[in-house]
């Protein structure tokens, strides 16, 4: 306990904020070199955290592969720096990417050999473009006006990511890029990550809290339909414990709406909504993951169950059901999403989806990773009388 107390000594200047996690200094504790170092470390950590908070900005979805559960990856931590998955890859993740591609010679996952292989830094990035997007109403017998507006190729995302590893257990990660049809420049995801070992992590910054199946399809009913798709990042702090049998992730969210565009005409502003919390508990069993999650947000609470199931080495099932209770309007609604995938040949996966969000929606598509770093996916979905189709090309660095 005394160790926690003396760390607060040099942080009293920012007492209103540090009071969140630091006790009053213990006047009886003798000063020592170790204490001074600890004080300095705590202060540096705080200012780095504050810097990341200031730089943070919304707008991201994970680019992980929960479907990799069929290959034994019940957790994202083996491949991604972020234990919840997505974005910058660890060296092992680059190697695993070779095994997910149709043609992936050894070393090709490291940017064809050009990716730096240092212990103190990781680099990454994503470029995604929507190739087509049309919506056809069979009842009206014509393409929708929205479809004609969207029926074009546009760049959805072009971002870079850098993760620094200044000490044995600390990682600093930030992204910078352009997003959406208007190419808004944003710093959208950033965090400080503490990984003291295999069983525990703590993270603070701006990210999507761990909730349900972190599928990369941000249009899924359980992502976009619950406000967890593009722009789902929040200012938050997270602690997580993981073991061979499961995981517990608890997240405190401090602000759900941060507006901080870098160089954008909207200027700079940082404001927070009511704080909330999120939690995800999952068990790893039968080469699969089964869990429940909940997220209390300023105006609503979402809770549900999810599963990522490895049926065989080549077939997987992802499923999630949630209930969203709007506490202001006192209104409940249910959303559900399920995806079944079959990797017919290495790298090429046929997928079928069934979703529920104010009515059922069904889809059929494919996902192909011909080489490491390249991914093409396309799908057709039907909801009531409306058919829609889209294709996405994705390059990750």
């Amino acid at each position, binding site marked *: 306990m005394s160790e926690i107390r003396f760390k607060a000594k040099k942080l009293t200047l920012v007492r209103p904020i540090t009071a969140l996690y630091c006790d009053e200094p213990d006047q009886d504790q003798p000063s020592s070199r170790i204490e001074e170092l600890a004080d300095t470390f705590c202060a540096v950590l705080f200012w780095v955290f504050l810097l990341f908070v200031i730089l943070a900005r919304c707008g991201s979805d994970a680019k992980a592969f929960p479907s990799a559960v069929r290959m*034994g*990856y*019940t*957790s994202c931590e*083996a491949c991604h720096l972020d234990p919840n998955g997505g974005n910058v890859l660890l060296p*092992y993740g680059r190697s695993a990417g070779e*095994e997910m591609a149709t043609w992936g010679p050894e070393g090709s996952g490291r940017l064809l050999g050009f990716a730096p292989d240092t212990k103190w830094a990781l680099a990454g990035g994503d470029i995604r473009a929507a190739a087509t997007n049309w919506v056809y109403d069979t009842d009206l017998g014509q393409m929708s006006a929205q479809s004609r507006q969207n029926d074009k190729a546009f760049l959805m995302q072009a971002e870079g990511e850098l993760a620094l590893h200044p000490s044995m257990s600390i990682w600093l990660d930030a992204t910078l890029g352009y997003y959406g049809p208007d190419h808004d420049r944003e710093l959208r995801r950033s965090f400080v990550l503490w990984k003291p070992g*295999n069983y525990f992590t703590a993270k603070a910054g701006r990210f999507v809290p761990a909730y349900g199946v972190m599928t990369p399809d941000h249009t899924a009913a359980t992502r976009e339909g619950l406000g967890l798709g593009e722009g789902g990042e929040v200012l938050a702090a997270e602690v997580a414990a993981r073991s061979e049998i499961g995981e517990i992730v608890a997240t405190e969210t401090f602000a759900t709406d941060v507006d901080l565009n870098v160089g954008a005409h909207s200027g700079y502003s940082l404001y927070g909504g009511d704080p909330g919390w999120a939690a995800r508990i999952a068990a790893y069993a039968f080469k699969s993951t089964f869990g429940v999650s909940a997220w209390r947000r300023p105006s609503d609470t979402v809770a549900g169950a999810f599963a990522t199931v490895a049926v065989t*080495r080549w077939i997987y099932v992802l499923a999630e059901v949630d209930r969203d209770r709007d506490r202001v309007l006192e209104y409940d609604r249910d959303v559900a999403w399920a995806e079944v995938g079959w990797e017919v040949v290495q790298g090429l996966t046929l997928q079928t989806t069934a979703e529920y969000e104010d009515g059922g929606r069904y889809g059929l598509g494919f996902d192909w990773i011909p080489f490491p770093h390249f991914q093409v996916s396309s799908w057709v979905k039907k909801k009531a009388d409306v058919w829609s189709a889209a294709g996405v090309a994705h390059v990750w660095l």
Partner: protein
Amino acid sequence: MLKLVAIVSALFLQSALAAPAKKHKIVEEPKVANHLTGSVDFHAVGSPGFLHIDGSGATAAGETWKAKDGTVTGHFVADLTGFKTGIGLRDKHMHEKYLESNKWKDAFFDLDSWTPTEKPSQFGGKLRIKEMSKQVFGTASWDGKTLRADFEIELDDFPIEVPRHLGITVAKTVTVEIKMAEANGS
């Protein structure tokens, strides 16, 4: 008429002779087959990330001998070259760097005296991988048709380097599962 009586008598006689044999089969004690064939799987965990590594595809064959007191002993051989984990590069490293299965193709197991039970019961035996033998203990069951056994091994006990690849380290404890059945023709 005589022919009909003869046929009915023959059928009746056949039934009467067959009945005791059937009855004898019911009360017969379950026996352990002499020759068994089957498969060997293993399960390991890699960290960080607790990734599940499941190896399968290795074949096994063996013989058991039953003593008068009902206990059995046995000798089994597993062909390690058949192991696959579902990821090509991992398989390559497993066979070339860790198991060295091109050099040490087989693993051997000598079963100590064990009383077959339908529910899993303790057994012991000596496992030899590469040139190293080590006593292992586990649980096994025999339901009259299938022998199932599982046990844990410590990689440190055998001349197998702890697998490491780009930051992922495999836990030293590996679970082995064996499923065997009576070989055809035995």
